[in-house]
């Protein structure tokens, strides 16, 4: 690569401020922050939906909301938390942290990165716009055919869902290509694949899962959309279509999706534990390979979501055994985390509390998972609250705990402010107690016969006491979220000194540069010789490094801001949006014109051209 960028006039040095600078930004850190803010707002919305659900289930024969509204609430709660909460919260860390941990200036394709964000935002807005039509999706997050067919779901509800998820899929795929290339190609000089921080490794595996699983759900959604818009019979039994094909396509995506949700969290925890134990991650190679093995086998277990469909004993046995095999690498991960803590010097800062809480809760979720890997037992458990308990232990006790720990860990780097430790500890304990109070009773109520997705239960069933506990727990979780927001607000407004570059004695490269980093991250690309690059640099330097000082803003030329990704994203959203309520040719046409204009303007734009200011 002998070409040099010096021939280009150093274009964009200094980050501008103001709303337009955010709309046109291609800086991975700003895009990361936008992902974070957007996803957090969607997460709060999903949480509010959950609170309404919990209030409806406070007592038997609840009448707070109607059956129809309840069905919309649980569908949107699941859809929101998965596609608009946990996934983009992970994407926030991918965006902000992968380049920093790799010692890179940005992602491989900064404008594509902006495009991903805008498509994600528009997809999230479209799917939620359904509320204003009183037609939020109501077929469950799994949208089983043939309930979602035009005959049984004639309204706009399912249209919003198929279109919204397709748009979100475009965002995920574009981002996955981007991060895949970033990890392969933008590692700092000397950083081999087996030197990468564990968060980067787990994120990398996540991108592979995204690349391979999202096309499958896209096809399923496209076929469903065509069924609904044009009257084909892909999932309509009357025309020979088979609803079970939907289930296979959905879970071929849906099970890898579970790992898409949890693997980044494995990575975050694997970053936090060593730093606050003051010793390296135990069994690095085992951690990498177990993560890869989980992802690989994760493509061969989808039908364990379908034991009750009656697949026959051979398929049942195969998928049961494959599922149990996944428990082995998962166990290896847990043991290695405990091995990391073992013999360390543990500092119970807030990120560490959340990381330890993650392990404790994830063990629970993993063990209940083994319980329904057994098909005959699963015939009693599936579609009951036992399953709801299980996946909340994995996705809330797992993913949300880790993502929250990551927020406390990386907040100083991203904002330049330290969060309050006292409020952080309070946040942790409220969440721990609230979480267990909400979700532990669900195991019991599920085994005692309470099905999922029911808008009410009878007095005879005697589910009231346990449901009341769950509702109290849910409000404690809401309170924990308020404490978190108060923590952010309080420290944001305080006049504390700016956070140091390396507040936790970090092991990875993001702590080598000022908090928050300058636009170009690294004035010079760091040279890396092994794992835990920053610890090694500090050891060589005799223990500590001096606080890095900001360098001149024009030291490194960075790509210009661009509004073209936003135009292309609008094109995608409009084109697909034309499928809401049938197929509107003129909407597709307008969308395609906008899309092609955006793509061409983007393709022929020189990102380093002099801006003329």
């Amino acid at each position, binding site marked *: 690569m002998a070409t040099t960028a010096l021939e280009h006039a150093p274009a964009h040095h200094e980050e501008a401020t103001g709303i337009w600078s955010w709309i046109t930004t291609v800086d991975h850190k700003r895009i990361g922050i936008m992902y974070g803010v957007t996803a957090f707002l969607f997460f709060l919305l999903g949480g509010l939906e959950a609170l309404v659900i919990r209030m409806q289930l406070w007592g038997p024969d609840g009448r707070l909301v109607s059956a129809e509204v309840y069905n919309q609430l649980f569908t949107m709660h699941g859809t929101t938390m998965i596609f608009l909460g946990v996934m983009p919260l992970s994407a926030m860390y991918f965006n902000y942290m992968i380049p920093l941990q790799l010692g890179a200036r940005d992602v491989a394709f900064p404008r594509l990165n902006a495009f991903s964000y805008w498509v994600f935002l528009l997809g999230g807005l479209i799917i939620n716009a359904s509320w204003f039509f009183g037609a939020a999706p109501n077929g469950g997050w799994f949208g089983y055919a043939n309930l979602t067919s035009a005959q049984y779901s004639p309204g706009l509800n399912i249209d919003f869902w198929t279109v919204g998820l397709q748009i979100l899929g475009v965002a995920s795929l574009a981002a996955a290509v981007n991060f895949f290339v970033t990890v392969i190609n933008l590692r700092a000089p000397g950083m081999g694949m087996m030197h990468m921080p564990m968060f980067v490794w787990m994120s990398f595996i996540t991108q592979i899962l995204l690349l391979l699983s999202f096309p499958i759900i896209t096809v399923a959604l496209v076929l469903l959309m065509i069924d609904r818009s044009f009257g084909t019979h892909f999932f309509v039994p009357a025309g020979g279509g088979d609803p079970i094909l939907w289930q296979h396509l959905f879970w071929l995506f849906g099970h890898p999706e579970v790992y898409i949700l949890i693997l980044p969290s494995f990575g975050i925890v694997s970053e936090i534990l060593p730093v606050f134990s003051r010793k390296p991650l135990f069994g690095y190679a085992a951690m990498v390979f177990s993560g890869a093995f989980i992802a690989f086998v994760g493509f061969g277990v989808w039908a364990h979501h379908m034991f009750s469909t009656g697949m026959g*004993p051979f398929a049942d046995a195969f998928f049961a055994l494959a599922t149990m095999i996944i428990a082995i690498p998962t166990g290896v991960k847990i043991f290695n985390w405990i091995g990391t803590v073992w013999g360390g010097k543990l500092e119970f800062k807030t990120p560490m509390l959340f990381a330890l809480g993650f392990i404790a809760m994830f063990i629970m979720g993993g063990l209940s998972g*083994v319980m329904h890997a057994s098909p005959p037992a699963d015939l009693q458990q599936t579609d009951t609250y036992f399953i709801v308990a299980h996946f909340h232990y994995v996705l809330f006790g797992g993913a949300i705990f880790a993502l929250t720990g990551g927020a406390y860990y990386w907040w100083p780097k991203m904002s330049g402010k330290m969060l309050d430790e006292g409020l952080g500890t309070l946040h942790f304990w409220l969440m721990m107690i609230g979480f267990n109070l909400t979700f532990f009773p669900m195991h019991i109520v599920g085994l*005692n016969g309470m099905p999922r997705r029911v808008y*009410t239960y009878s007095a005879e069933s005697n589910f009231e006491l346990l449901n009341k506990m769950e509702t109290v727990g849910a409000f404690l979780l809401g309170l924990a979220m308020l404490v978190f927001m108060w923590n952010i607000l309080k420290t944001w407004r305080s006049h504390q000194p700016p956070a140091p570059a390396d507040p936790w004695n970090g092991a990875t490269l993001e702590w080598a540069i000022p908090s928050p980093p300058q636009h170009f991250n690294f004035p010079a690309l760091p040279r890396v010789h092994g794992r835990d690059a920053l610890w090694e640099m500090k050891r060589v330097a005799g223990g500590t490094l001096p606080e890095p000082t900001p360098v001149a803003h024009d030291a490194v030329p960075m790509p210009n801001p661009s509004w073209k990704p936003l135009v292309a994203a609008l094109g995608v959203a409009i084109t697909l949006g034309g499928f809401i309520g049938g197929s509107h040719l003129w909407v597709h046409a307008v969308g395609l014109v906008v899309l092609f204009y955006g793509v061409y303007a983007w393709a022929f734009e020189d990102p380093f051209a002099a801006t003329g200011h």
Partner: protein
Amino acid sequence: MSQTPVRRLRLGAPVLLLAAAMLAAGCAPDQYPQTTLIPRADFAREADTLMRQTLLWATIVFVLVEGALLFAIWKFRNRPGAAEPVQTHGNTTLEIVWTIIPAFILAMIAVPTVRTIFKTSQRPGPGALQVEVIGHQWWWEFRYPELGITTAGELVVPSGRTVSLEMTTADVLHSFWLPQFAGKRDVFPGRYNNLWFKAEVEGNFPAQCVEFCGVQHGRMAYRIVSVTPEAFDAWAANFNAPPKDFTADSTANPLVREGQRLFTAKGCGGCHAMYPALPLIGPNLHHVGSRSHIAAGTLENTDENLARWIKNPQEWKTGVLMPNLGLTDQETAAIVAYLRANQ
């Protein structure tokens, strides 16, 4: 931060107490009529045994691993003056050990799992009572082809005799569940799924649909009524007796006769058959007066509930296909009397 472990204990105590209370609640499954934890038939017993074996292993692993975690947290907490930890990077022997141990435990679960899978997928032999189960939005229909019976909302079975269910749906996917007797199976249009069980006790048990199937999935319930073989034969014989025509019987209660007239005049008969036959659109109501519950097993069969239901079905079950016919109180009372007279 060194007080944190102490605080952990202080907060941990009430949490543990609460957990114990919840466990106690879970260990009293007899309080829950829909529980899966008290198997009352062979099939459910298989699933329950397997579940308890897995739960035992899970509990052992839970205690050991969470114990190790908590011990490490307590033991290796930062104390003033503690030395920097040894920078270990891993241990191959340990990695092998903690790969093999879970594999061994999983094998202990896998063997009985596979055995039970094949056992529970066997078809029941001859002599089983055949019942066809058909899901509808949002009620269940039961046909006994050998007995010529078609009914709804209540699956009546004889205890001590294997019942073989052939299950399908008339519209969307549902899932038929017998929490006390067997597991569940989803039902698909145009294909049949099978479940079987031999009830060990008599009783009237609640159950409900467990696959989301539209707006009233939450109130798509049914009863499983297990009776002695003699009572079952009596029920079947009574079912096949010719339907009563109250209008032709001048000695009958005039309210009942008026009810029968209204039942036809108001068009109820357009959807509900009052005689042993294949159903029309709605559930077959032959002998509805003898059922313990109405409205897909969600309301007890009393005069008040029946009146409430007939007067405005949309009030209890919004979105149900049965319309509000705008009946007066007198008309409602007459139809209720007629339906209740169909014992």
